């Protein structure tokens, strides 16, 4: 079956196509070159005046893993709300900040997203996380395995083990947990919290292992690079949310020692201590550092006002913030001595000085990082806001008048302190396509997504051009997944099962034996039981396809 999408304005930044009118051809789930004249077109859709982009990719969104179930259990009122009614096509689901798996998939697809990546997949919990993500329909999925506070790694590092062994362990973890990248959360800090440390800065030493966050960052960034994993080390820096944390964030970039590094939800890591309230924006310094560092990239973790729930592996930060939870409840826990978890509900208020400034800092970062290939559009769902707010965020970036109107309504002290009002930049559709499509695909090392050249998977989103960008990005006219029409006018017309994206870097199997002994001695299960095979992963996702992306081992 040959599908022709005729006459749309195509935004395909991976190939420099900026709104040119092009025809897009789709056959067998892939985009193909224009066929020879006379070829039968099975279906043609007239897209004149429409905006055509690849399906959007969310590269940092918490959609699987135990923390979400904790959030759901903790906030039954959130879970009762926003019900999705069962229909002939859709399954019943519910929830706002921590929606059910079905609602998650449906809402992503209805906004034109065709892939979403879970950034805090605890290797020990990988099976449950993949099961949960497997239940999210419509979108492709993948996870980043969380390391950096796990006992095994810290033991290796404390003993001064050579990098090659650590590389093997990291590779083994990627295999065992079936992930596409490595994430580090509050390097060494999650573990240090359990040894009664309440603050870990880059140079602080872990009270037991004596390892510093800087050591962990260097070691893991190097491991990821040497294993040839395309996706750079995904870093949630130390001191999340602490006023005056920006030097730590700058130091984190340095700590990778030239290896690729991605700083996630950087908004929470861009705080200074100027002003009467000792809380100020350091967006300018952070953006300057990102702009000047070729090996660094970031996503923002924008906050938007309203009720949400924050779910993080960073038990140290969550414990610190438990007092400001709204409603007042929180969970801080250890998970199998492997990492931690903290969940607390939060309501961001536009009249609150700190929240309003956080909002402005996020937007400043978006506007001050000059290269759109180095910054990604996230709210750290659900930590800054639920992912359903993305269209609103896109409007804030693309429409300066609207942005300044919103700025006019926030806490006046925060408004005075922020430089946001003076920033004139407005994102273009081309840049939005980089932030939400081409950029994430390139960063993840997925070569056949996020663009519209022949050979790419036919994940395509078609928008009606609308000066109100929020309305435009909320309700795409068509969404195609692998060439199939799944959404029409913002409503799902076909339910599909996304695939898993993984990497399998080579490693020396000698590490198997070492891990088997370690598991036997210290953990509750055997290492072979933690290991998820490729076939099992497929089963976890209702016979989902498992894609293994190539790795190139650095010499």
């Amino acid at each position, binding site marked *: 079956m040959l599908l022709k999408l005729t006459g749309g304005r195509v935004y395909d930044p991976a190939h420099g196509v900026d709104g040119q009118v092009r025809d897009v051809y789709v056959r067998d789930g892939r985009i193909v070159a224009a066929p020879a004249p006379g070829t039968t077109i099975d279906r043609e859709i007239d897209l004149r005046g429409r905006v055509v982009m690849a399906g959007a990719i969310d590269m940092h969104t918490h959609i699987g893993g135990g923390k979400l179930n904790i959030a759901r259990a903790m906030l*039954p*009122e959130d879970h*009762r709300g926003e019900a999705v*009614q069962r229909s002939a096509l859709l399954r019943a689901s519910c929830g706002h900040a921590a929606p059910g798996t079905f609602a998650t998939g449906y809402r992503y697809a209805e906004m034109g997203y065709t892939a979403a990546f879970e950034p805090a997949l605890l290797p020990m919990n990988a099976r449950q996380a993949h099961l949960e993500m497997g239940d999210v329909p419509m979108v492709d999925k993948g996870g980043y395995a969380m390391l950096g506070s796990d006992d095994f790694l810290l033991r290796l590092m404390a003993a001064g083990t050579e990098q090659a062994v650590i590389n093997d362990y990291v590779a083994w973890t990627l295999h065992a947990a079936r992930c596409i990248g490595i994430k580090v959360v509050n390097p060494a800090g999650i573990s240090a919290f359990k040894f009664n440390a309440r603050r870990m800065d880059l140079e602080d030493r872990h009270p037991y292992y004596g390892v510093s966050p800087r050591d962990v960052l260097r070691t893991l960034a190097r491991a990821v690079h040497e294993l040839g994993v395309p996706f750079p080390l995904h870093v949630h820096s130390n001191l999340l949310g602490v006023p005056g944390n920006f030097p730590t964030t700058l130091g984190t970039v340095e700590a990778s020692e030239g290896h690729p590094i991605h700083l996630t939800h950087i908004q929470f890591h861009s705080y200074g201590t100027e002003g009467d309230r000792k809380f100020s924006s350091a967006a300018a310094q952070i953006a300057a550092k990102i702009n000047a560092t070729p090996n660094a990239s970031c996503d923002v973790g924008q906050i938007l006002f309203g009720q949400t729930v924050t779910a993080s592996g960073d038990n140290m930060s969550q414990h610190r913030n438990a007092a400001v939870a709204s409603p007042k409840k929180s969970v801080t826990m250890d998970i199998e001595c492997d990492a931690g978890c903290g969940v607390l509900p939060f309501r961001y208020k536009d009249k609150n000085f700190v929240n309003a400034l956080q909002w402005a800092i996020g937007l400043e970062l978006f506007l001050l990082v000059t290269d759109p290939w180095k910054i990604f559009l996230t709210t750290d769902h659900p930590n800054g806001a639920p992912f359903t707010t993305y269209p609103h965020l896109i409007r804030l970036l693309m429409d300066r008048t609207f942005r300044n109107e919103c700025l006019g309504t926030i806490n006046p002290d925060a408004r005075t302190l922020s430089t946001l009002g003076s920033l004139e930049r407005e994102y273009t559709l081309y840049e939005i396509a980089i932030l939400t499509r081409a950029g994430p695909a390139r960063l993840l090392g997925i070569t056949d997504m996020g663009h519209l050249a022949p050979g790419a998977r036919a994940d395509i989103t078609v928008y009606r051009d609308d000066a109100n960008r929020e309305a435009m990005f909320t309700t795409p006219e068509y969404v195609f997944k692998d060439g199939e029409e799944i959404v029409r006018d913002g409503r799902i017309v076909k339910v599909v099962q996304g695939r898993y994206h993984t990497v399998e870097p080579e490693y020396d199997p000698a590490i198997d034996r070492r891990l088997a002994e370690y598991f036997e001695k210290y953990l509750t299960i055997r290492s072979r039981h933690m290991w998820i095979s490729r076939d099992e992963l497929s089963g976890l996702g209702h016979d989902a396809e498992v894609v293994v992306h190539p790795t190139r081992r650095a010499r």
Partner: protein
Amino acid sequence: MSALRLTLRAAPAQRVDCAPLTPAALGGKSAAEIGALLLAAGGPPVRVDDLFTIEGTPGDTLVLAGATARLDGIGTALNGGTIEVDGDAGDYLGRGMATGTIRVSGSVGTFAGSGMTGGELRVRGHAGDFLGAPLPGEHRGIRGGLVLVEGNAGERAGDRMRRGTLLIKGNTGALLASRMVAGTIAVGGTVGPGAGTGMRRGTLLLPALPAGLPATFNDCGTFPLSFLTLLARAWRGLPAPFGDLPERGLRVRRLMGDLAAEGKGEILIRA
């Protein structure tokens, strides 16, 4: 006065969520429009006119005639107007209501008046468990208004109540006023075990000392309380045994607790 009358055609086989049926939501709609509304139900949604015959014009008052215990969520978030239920009502009656009146001639299910902030809820028959109680995960039960049950109430009535008045003419099940924060509860009949467990503040007015009171209540003796004069005046016009509370001369035995919580709650036993 205009009234809309919805008469149940036959007892529904499945539970039906009647939350959309409030005077405000139906105001200004034609009978055809009301009939076409869909109500969530066990199985596929049902049309209002499949379930009810529709008479009268929408206005300040809505009458649900021939109602059964399968009709859930009647008067949810009611804000103004009157709902009269002729028959029984299901669960979540008047949940989260703010103003207005709901009167039920029969009995009601669980979580009636849950989290209400104002208005008046009157039940001629019995109420199920969790009368006025919050749903799991919520922090507050009744936060204002008046609930009057002429029959009995089940367990956990007044759980986490914060403000307002809860009056039960008959008996109550276990754990009356559990985790109560503030407000007033009075009962005409007997009270099940564990009354006032986790009570922080608030007042419980009972005709006799209940069996199985937590050990964490402290007997403070029997004496007159001038506050009771004010209470009696406020309750004038309510049915006995609440409306006929004597303005003077009433002595009560006062037990303070729950000392395992804040301990500022009081259980008053009429002497």
